[in-house]
Structures are given as C-alpha cells and as structure tokens.
C-alpha cells in the first residue's frame, strides 16, 4: 500500500475538501486514501496504466492564472477561479498536481459512469446464475452502484464462444470479457510471458493467445484473479462452488521460501481454492499456479489419518505411549523438517535438548523462476535457524544421518515428515532401529516406521513461517484436520513432557511464543503470536548472512551476498 | 347361623344383581366418555370419533356404517388402549399410595350405587319391592358419606406423585370437596323435612322412600327448586366437572392430580370420574326427578308386572342419561372458574343460600303441618 508518510505530500481539492495526498499517486489512489471510491476496471495498482475501460472518469480542474501577470484569477466572492477541463479525464492516468480540483461525484461524472456501464453491458450475457465470478464481480458491483438499473437494448446480443481453452488451467468465456487488458499487461509485465492479445475490432474484439502459444506459464491463474469480470475462469475451480459460500482464511503458501500471502477459501471443512493475498512487501498480488493446487494434498489418497504402531492402526494415546517407550532408551536422532512451522521447530529443538538427541535436517531445492517460486522449496528453512534447531545450512540430503547410522550411534529416530530413503540413507543401515514418524503423508519411511503419528497440513493448523526475506508471517487454520488427530505442536509437547523430566511445555501457541521470546538474545524477543495478525514482521537475519542461501534475485528479494547466491 | 336355601338364594341373587349393576354403570361410564367426545364435537361443529369399528361390522349394510359413524366401538378401543399402554411409574413417586390412589378413587364411586334404587319389581302377589342392592334406611346419608371418600383417591394421587402439579390438584380437590359438601348436605335437609312430614310413614333418609313420595305426586324439583339447584351445582363440584374442575385444570396444572399417571391407572381415574357422574345423575334423578315414575302427578301408565318394571327402569335410565347429557352440555358451554371464584361461590353464595332455603322450608313445613297438629 502507498503510505501517506512515504512521499512528499501535496494538497488537492477532492470534492470541495482540501486533502493531503502523497505526490505522484494517481487520482484513484488519492481518492481511495480519503475514502472516495472511483470505480475502475482496467486499472490495477501493480500493473501499468492502460486507461481503456473509461470507468474512472472524473472532472478535473486547476486554479486559473492570468497569462500576463501570473496572478490568480478570482471569483466574485474572492475564491480562486477554477479552470475545469471541459471533458472528464480518467482518474487512473491522471497524477495529482498541487492545488488541483477533482470532482468524483458530480452529475457529469455520475452520468459518465452510467453510460460506460451501459456500454459495457450491451453485449454482456445474463450469465450471473452460472458465472463463477458472481459475488465478487466488479461488473455486478458497479452495475448496482453506478448503473442505470434497466436495459434500453432491444437487439440481439453478441454470441461468442463460451469455453475457449487459453491454457491448461485457464478457460475464457468470450461473451463476458470487457476488454480491460489487465491479463495482457500481467503476462507482459509480471509473468514475463507475452502470450495474450486482442484481435478483431469493435464488438468483435476478442482476447486470444498468439498463434501456436498458450497461456501455460506458472502464473497464468493470476489473470483469473485479475479479471474484473467472469471472462477468465480457473478450470480447476470452474463451477465448483459459488464464492459467497466460501470462508476465506489468511494463510501462507507452503510451496517455497517466497512465502506468498494467500487466502484459503473453504466451505464446511473443504478447501475449494487458494488465491493470493496482497502484500506489497512479499508477493504484491500474485502467487504461482503450483502453490494453488497444494490444497489437494489435504484430501489426497496417501494422507495419513490413523496413528499406527508396528503397522497396526491404534489409538493416538497408544501410539504416543509406544513412541515414548521407544525414545526413552539410548541415543536418539531427530530428523527435523524445513516444512514445519517455527513453533514446531522450536519444540523439536527443545525435545532434542531435553533428551540429548542428535539433530539432522535436509533442505529441498529446485529451480528459481525469479518471481515467486524460489529455489528453496520449503517454506521455513530460516525458521530452523531462528528456532535454534539448525546452525548450519542444510544440504539436499541426509548424508550425515547415513554416516551416523553406519557408525551405529543411534538407537531410535524421530522423523518429521522426511523420507529418509530419498535422502541418501540406505534402507539396510536402519537395521531395526525404531523410527517414530510424524508426518502428513505416507512415504517409504512411514511404512517402515515403528510408530506413525499423523500430523496436520498447514491448512489445518496455525503457526508461522519465516520467508526468504526473514519476514515472519503467520498462517491460520482454515479447515479442521482429520478426526481424532492433534496438531503437531501438541504431539511434540506431549512427547517433550513425557520424555523430559521436569518439563511443563504448554501446547498453546501463545505459551510457546512466550518461551521462544524469553532468551535475551532471541531475534523473536518482544514479539508474540498475536503481533503477526497485523501483518508480517521483519526479523534481523544478519547473523546468518554468511550462510549459502540458494535463492536468486526475485520479486522483492535480493540475495544478501551475491557470493552466497552463486555458490549454490 | 345356618345358611338355609333361602339365604343362599338371596345372596346369589344379590351377587348376580351386583355384577349386573357394576357392568351397567361401567358401560355407562364408558359410553359417557364417548358421549362427551361426540357431544363436544357436535357443539363445536366437528363430527367426533367415527373411525373405530369391529372387524366385518362395517360390511353390514346401513347399520354398519351408521354404528361406525356414531363411534359405538370407540370405548372398547379406548379401554384396550389403556390396557396395552406401557406401564410407566415415575421414579420419584411413593409407590404404595401411588398404586392405591386410583382404586381409592374408583371404589367409593362404585360403592354408592349399592344403595341406589333404579326401579320397582312387581311380585305376582301384588307386592312391590324396589330394585336395589341394599335398601338402607339411611341410604342418602350413606351416599353422602361414601361419595366424599372419593376425594381421598385424588388427594392421595396428588401427594404420592411427589410433584408440584398433582400436589396442587390434590389440595384444590380436598378444599373444593369440603366447601361444597356443606352446601350439598344443607340443600338436602329441606327434602327430608318435606318428605318425612309426620304421618306420611315414609323414611326421608331412604332413597326408595323419597322416590315413593314422588309417585303420583309432585316431583321435588318443583316444590324445592332452590334445593335442586344447589344440589346440582354441588354435584358438579363434587364430580369435578368442568366449571369446577380445579383438580385437573389443564391450563394451569398440566394434568392436575393425574399428571404423573399413565396407562391403566390413569384409565381407572378416568372411569371413576365418569362413574361419579353416572351415579350422581342417578341420585339426582331419584331425589328430584321422581325416580322411575314417568310424570309428576300422574300414575305410571304401565301395568304392575314385569313389563312395568322394565319400563320403570327404562324411564329411570332415560332421565339419568339426559342428566349426563346435561353435565356434558354444561361442560362445553361454560368456561372454568378461577379457584378463588370456586371458593367464593361455595362459601359466600351457596352456603348462605342453602341456610336461607332450609330456614324457609322449616317455617313452611311447620306451618303446613299445623292443621294436622290441631286436628
């Protein structure tokens, strides 16, 4: 968001009131800062200005000056005479000038809006009952707020193709398109994949992909979010659920260390879609398509839903008892996870300290697309550093664990969701060591584990992640987890309390935060979980600046030292 | 004492007789329930029970559908329903008295009919006996004594239920009974005075005597209308009929004394209530409406033989049934009194009225008797 304090302020006259706005903003933003809505379709704060929808027409004028003397010309009552621009101007492409006068609700402006709405609706189909955008549609909103209320159009409406496939994830309903070109600008400016454009003229204008191309980049679904009407629809969400049924919960995308802010839309415990949430410090208004389909893992086939001991389903109490029995003898190794929340990593560290266990950690790395999908494919690698679980930068494997197993130092293993056998650990080297597996999905390790304690996905629990910029961001539970399962922090605090004498670890987020913020040297000092409700919190990561972070330069991110970035 | 054949015969006869009477009264009680439902329905523009029918009966042309429409078989179904309902005894009741209460309510109702004459039997030799189980000299006193025992059943039910509504019902019932018992007794005294005028040779405390005094003479309702009115009102109160049904007023006491009762125990209460009405109507008929004599001032138009007996009984029953109809009629016409109004009516209106009535008849009878004394 544009903050008033950031820039130099200028004074303009908005609907007869003198207001201060930052210099350089356009009239839409300036009016929004003072609670006036100027309706618009094509303008988007994070895209270039196109000015083709004409919805944001306002009246503008400046105080007149005498050309010869430069003296202000005054009205008869002594007030400066305003030279109004004879025709309305578009608010999106008009930046504020000191002293300018703007009318956002004059008769001319209202008449302009009414006429623009009428033009936009001339060929718009009466699709609202089946349109996925209904309920969050700008056209619906502005038609009720500024529209004429009845139709004067008696001719047949244009009929255009209703389900054009633009790409693997995006379907276009041509009839509904109002030609605002937001999607085209997004593909050019943000996704850097220029595939969309308009062809034909007049009422035959159509949005289409360039010949032989399709809208298949990893940011294509952002065009669906951008579309102010229901023209671009997500093939995945198409006809699944009306938006007014959906409960939106703020969350953080667990896909990569970019930590995109998201809204998880669910109804009655079922997630239907994930959309980006605007955060100008982290992800603007975008997120990758790959992160949007992560909700499917909640209901996937290989989801662990029942606690197991020795391959047999059992009650959670029995499983915890078996885990405690297996961990209370000999040397324990704990394999942490960069996918766990900060609180879970803190508890895992407490557990490791309490039972003097050896700690292991692996990272998951991939290609960096330079936007919002970073090479670090875990949401919380920096959390392991902050929580004290790890001090060194993890490798993409668990060779240190393999070494320890080969030496035969370990008598039991706690594994947090990682698959050991995909991490350069030999199945033979386990050699009957009991494995306590805490994870959400089945894998080779969970199948071999003595005790399986199913945990919850990030959609089913609350917690916080630290992203690549050391922004601490909270995510909230959006749907309930499978029946009978406990959140990870409760499982970990149970284990901690039962294994470590004189340990009274609370399992409440606020209690854990109290413990985390207590050490004087903690970077989380003077923070508590409820602070994160207001927004992300920038932490001091200079302590770890020398570590070889793998992320490359991307949207809102610059590697701390180019050397470290190169070394990955 | 040796039991000779005559005594045995008498006992046998009386036993048979008693069975017949119990059967008759219970049947009448059952059918009064039906009458209650039918009459109330008609008065409210409805049709009332008209679905119950015995197997095959509805196939009888004309008669079958008619009986079905009249609901003739409804009492049977109602009785069976009470019998087969689940027996629920709330955990908080005093078991002994809880089980006892319905019986205590029913027994007085049935006992009173032992002294109730309902006809005359003409012997071949010209003698006539009243048709009665026990021709007590003090029959009316017996009735007054026993019928007021019925309230014990209600009080007992209210107390043993151990619950507030039955308790209130029981208390109201006993208070109401005491209040109207007085007016009732006082309203009968002028009757005794009138009937037992010196020299008439009739025992005024015997119901047969009272009936006999009305033969070919005026009915007592004509000479003593105020007594009859007070007695009738008191009868309504004693039988807990509607303008006075304080003990079970549904609007304020849920079900009153029988709130905690169900199935057959409730059924017994129900039957007892209607048995009271039947017996009460019969008593009123005997005392004020000339008993089995068909018209006042006129000799019975039937011969003095078995046919005459039957017609006499029929006449008595007709009067009783009409009176039962009157009971039902009143119920569906008048709204319920408030409890304080019931008390006010009993103590402030009926009791003084009965006393004034008594004094009036004392003076009247003594004045009428004067010539006899001087002669």
């Amino acid at each position: 968001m544009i903050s008033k304090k950031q820039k130099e302020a200028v004074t303009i006259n908005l609907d007869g009131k003198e207001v201060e706005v930052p210099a350089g903003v356009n009239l839409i933003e300036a009016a929004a800062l003072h609670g006036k809505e100027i309706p618009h379709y094509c303008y988007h704060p994070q895209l270039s200005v196109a000015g083709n929808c004409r919805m944001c027409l306002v009246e503008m004028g400046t105080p007149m000056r005498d050309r010869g003397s430069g003296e202000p010309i005054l009205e008869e009552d002594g007030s400066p005479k305003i030279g109004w621009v004879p025709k309305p101007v578009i608010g999106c492409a008009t930046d504020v000038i000191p002293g300018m006068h703007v009318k956002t609700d004059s008769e001319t402006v209202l008449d302009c809006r009414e006429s623009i709405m009428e033009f936009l609706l001339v060929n718009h189909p009466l699709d609202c009952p089946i349109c996925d955008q209904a309920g969050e549609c700008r056209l619906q909103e502005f038609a009720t707020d500024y529209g004429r209320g009845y139709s004067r159009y008696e001719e047949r409406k244009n009929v255009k193709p209703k389900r054009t496939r633009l790409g693997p994830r995006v379907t276009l309903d041509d009839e509904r398109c109002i030609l605002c070109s937001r999607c085209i600008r997004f593909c050019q400016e943000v996704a850097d994949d220029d595939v969309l454009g308009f062809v034909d003229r007049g009422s035959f204008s159509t949005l289409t992909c360039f010949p032989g191309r399709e809208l298949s980049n990893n940011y294509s679904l952002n065009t669906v979010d951008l579309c102010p009407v229901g023209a671009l629809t997500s093939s995945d969400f198409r006809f699944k659920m009306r938006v007014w049924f959906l409960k939106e919960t703020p969350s953080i995308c667990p896909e990569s260390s970019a930590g995109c802010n998201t809204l998880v839309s669910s109804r009655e415990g079922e997630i239907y879609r994930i959309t980006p949430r605007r955060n100008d410090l982290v992800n603007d208004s975008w997120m990758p398509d790959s992160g949007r389909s992560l909700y499917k893992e909640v209901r996937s086939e290989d989801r662990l839903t029942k606690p197991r001991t020795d391959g047999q389903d059992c009650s959670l109490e029995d499983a915890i008892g078996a885990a405690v029995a297996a961990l209370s003898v000999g040397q324990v190794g704990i394999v942490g996870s960069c996918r766990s929340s900060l609180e879970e990593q803190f508890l895992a560290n407490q557990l490791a300290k309490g039972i003097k266990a050896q700690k292991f950690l692996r990272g998951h790395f991939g290609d960096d697309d330079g936007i919002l999908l970073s090479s670090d494919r875990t949401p919380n690698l920096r959390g392991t550093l902050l929580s004290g679980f790890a001090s060194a930068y993890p490798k993409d494997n668990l060779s240190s664990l393999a070494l320890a197993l080969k030496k035969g130092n370990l008598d039991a293993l706690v594994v947090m969701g990682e698959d050991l056998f995909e991490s350069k650990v030999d199945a033979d080297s386990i050699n009957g060591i009991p494995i306590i597996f805490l994870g959400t999905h089945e894998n080779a390790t969970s199948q071999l584990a003595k005790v399986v304690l199913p945990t919850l996905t990030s959609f089913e629990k609350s917690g916080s992640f630290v992203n690549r910029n050391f922004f601490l961001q909270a995510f909230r539970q959006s749907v309930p987890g499978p029946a009978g399962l406990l959140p990870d922090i409760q499982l970990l605090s149970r284990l901690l309390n039962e294994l470590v004498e004189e340990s009274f670890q609370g399992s409440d987020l606020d209690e854990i935060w109290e413990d985390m913020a207590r050490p004087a040297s903690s970077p989380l000092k003077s923070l508590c979980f409820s602070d994160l409700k207001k927004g992300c919190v920038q932490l001091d990561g200079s302590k770890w600046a020398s570590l070889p972070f793998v992320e490359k330069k991307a949207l809102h991110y610059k590697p701390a030292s180019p050397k470290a970035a190169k070394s990955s | 004492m040796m039991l000779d054949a005559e005594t045995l015969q008498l006992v046998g006869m009386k036993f048979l007789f008693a069975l017949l009477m119990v059967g008759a009264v219970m049947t009448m009680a059952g059918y009064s329930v039906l009458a209650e439902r039918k009459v109330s329905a008609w008065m409210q523009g409805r049709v009332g029970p008209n679905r119950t029918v015995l197997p095959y009966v509805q196939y009888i042309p004309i008669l079958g559908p008619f009986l079905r429409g009249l609901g003739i078989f409804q009492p049977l179904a109602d009785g069976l329903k009470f019998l087969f309902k689940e027996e629920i005894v709330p955990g908080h009741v005093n078991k002994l008295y809880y089980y006892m209460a319905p019986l205590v309510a029913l027994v007085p109702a049935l006992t009173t009919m032992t002294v109730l004459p309902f006809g005359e039997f003409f012997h071949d030799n010209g003698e006539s006996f009243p048709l009665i189980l026990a021709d007590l000299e003090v029959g009316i006193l017996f009735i007054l004594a026993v019928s007021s025992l019925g309230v014990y059943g209600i009080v007992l039910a209210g107390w043993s239920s151990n619950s507030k509504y039955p308790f209130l019902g029981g208390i109201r019932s006993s208070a109401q009974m005491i209040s109207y018992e007085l007016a009732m007794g006082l309203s009968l005294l002028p009757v005794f005075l009138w009937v037992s005028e010196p020299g008439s040779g009739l025992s005024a405390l015997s119901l047969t005597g009272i009936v006999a005094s009305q033969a070919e003479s005026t009915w007592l309702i004509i000479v003593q209308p105020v007594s009859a009115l007070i007695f009738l009102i008191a009868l309504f109160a004693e039988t807990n009929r509607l303008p006075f049904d304080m003990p079970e007023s549904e609007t304020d006491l849920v079900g009153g004394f029988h709130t905690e009762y169900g199935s057959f125990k409730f059924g017994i209460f129900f039957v007892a209530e209607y048995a009271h009405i039947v017996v009460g109507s019969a008593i009123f008929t005997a005392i004020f409406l000339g008993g089995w004599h068909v018209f006042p001032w006129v000799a019975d138009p039937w011969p003095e033989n078995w046919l005459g007996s039957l017609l006499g009984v029929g006449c008595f029953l007709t009067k009783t049934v009409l009176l039962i109809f009157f009971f039902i009629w009143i119920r569906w016409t008048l709204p319920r009194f408030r409890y304080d109004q019931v008390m006010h009516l009993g103590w402030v209106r009926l009791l003084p009225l009965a006393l004034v009535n008594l004094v009036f008849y004392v003076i009247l009878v003594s004045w009428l008797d004067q010539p006899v004394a001087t002669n």
Partner: protein
Amino acid sequence: MAKTVVLERKPLSLSERTYLPQILTGLKTTFTNMFKEKVTLQYPEEKPVLPPNYRGVPTLVKDPNGREKCVSCQLCEFVCPPKAIRITPGSVPEDHEDREHVEKAPQEFEINMLRCIYCGYCEEVCPEEAIFLQNEYSFSGYTRDEMINDKAKLYELGGTLPDDHYKWDKKKEAEEKGNPH
C-alpha cells in the same frame, strides 16, 4: 395528551348477578350448534381444495422441451433459512445438443424435507424459475434417508411446467440468426 375517561359500568341486575339467565343463553347457543353443519374434513377420503398459491413440497421442474431448467446457481441453497438444500454443481458437456449454452447444471440436488420449512424462498429467488413449491403436501417416509429428496425424485415430483421465457431458445436463435462471431 389524551384524556383518560373512566367509563362507569352499568350495575348488574339481580338476574344478571345470578348468572343463570346468561348460562341458559349459553346452553341454548351450544345446543343449537349441535345441529349445524359440521366443518370437519374427512381427510384421507376428502382432500382439501388448495389455493392457487399453495406452498407444498419444493420440486424441480423441466421446461416444455423436457430440459432441466436448474443451472445450479445455488441461490436457493444460499437463501434457504433452515439450510435444507444441498447442491453439488456440475457442468454440461460441450457436445450436449440441447443445452450447449447452459454450461452448468446440478450434478446432485438434495432437499432435506426434515429441514424444509416450506417458506418458498427458494422459489422466490430462483433466477431460472426451476424450483417450485407445488401442491404435494403429505410427504412422508419411514427413514431419515427417505426424507431427503435427491435430484431424480425432485424432477419426478416436479414434472413439466409451462415457460414464458424460453431463455435458452432465444440464446440459440441469437447465435444462429443474430450476430455470429
């Protein structure tokens, strides 16, 4: 300010104070009532005459061409006060002959008659005039499952109703004769 006027009630006469004449009048009223015509409707044999705007069991109707009208917009589900309606939306395949313009149709449509309060909001809100509360009023069943009307049952109950709009026919005509792209 309104002035309070105290009305003196006429004192009761002696006969009125005994209440007996009034009781007799009441008895007369109830007695004459006994012989008036009965108003009881002998239900299973005699059926009531339903008014034209009667709200019975909600049903789904088809248009005169036998096509399903519901487009699963879920507005009825949204407006339903007792949450009796549950719709699973689905799409119409592109090669569907009659309904290629409709695109969307309910995959499953359930109305829980144990929840329904017959308010008629669903009929009121339906933009396609697809749901109607018709004359069926004695809907019953032996199990809870039986009381949930699924899509097939709803169409069976609803049948076909006349349609004044022929929205989709007009759309088809526009495509054929209008401004084809």
